[in-house]
């Protein structure tokens, strides 16, 4: 599990992520798990996604982390506040 606190600017494949609603560029991050089977099942399969919530308006975007060797599609740049 990845735990990140703080506020981040995010780049996906080298392109800056913007909020789809307010065009904000700073996000809170959480790793989330979506159920791929009925949640009552104990050993259910889950889809792991990175949830990026706009710091200003809280609109959330979900991205799957993909790793190719040492490179990942998501780059987090911590913003000092």
């Amino acid at each position, binding site marked *: 599990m990845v735990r990140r606190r703080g506020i981040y600017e995010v780049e996906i494949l080298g392109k800056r992520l913007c909020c789809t609603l307010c065009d904000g560029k700073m996000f809170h991050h959480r790793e989330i798990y979506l*159920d*791929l089977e009925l*949640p*009552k099942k104990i050993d259910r399969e889950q889809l792991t996604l990175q949830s990026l919530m706009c710091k200003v308006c809280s609109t959330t975007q*979900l991205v799957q982390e993909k790793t190719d060797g040492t490179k990942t*599609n998501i780059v987090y740049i911590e913003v000092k506040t």
Partner: protein
Amino acid sequence: MVDELICDESRVWILGQPLICRFCANDVFLPYHTYKNVEKPGIDVFFVDYTAICLKCGCATQFGDPSGPSPDGTDYIWALEQVLLNPPEPEPPIIRTVDDKTLRAQKSCLSLALLLLVQEGIIENAVLPLVEEEQNENLLHLLEPGVYVSSEEIPAEKCLVLALSQIVKHRLLDNDKLHFIIEYESYPGIESFLRKHIE
């Protein structure tokens, strides 16, 4: 149009509009069924929707299935369309090989069964040479007019089954005994049983 999306690399359309990744404009996705706990109409109620992952950048697009009756209620509109990037290979046809001895037995039983049907006046005399000429397709049509025939070859066994079912239908022989012989003795039994009833 599809009933539900398959979780495989694909392009997806919703009500005719292509699904495009809003971040990178790519159009190839991996659509997952995902479950969400919803508030209404009660506790532990789950809502299934789709989470499609863009195969280029990984961004998720979430959507449901807006399929439903048309506004005038006379039709049903399927909203989702999916084209797989790597469609599955069609399954190879099943080829059943019949050894010579079995085939001979099948044909001999078929001839006898047809002879019996001709004798009882259920079918025309003309069918008899068809067995030797292996015109199974014509035979099949004579035995059961209007039957659907796919492009595959018709085995003698199928004709035999139809001929025997005609015998059963017209109650030409003791049906219980015939069933017993088919189940436990197969070809040699059928052959001698049929021969006994031919004048």
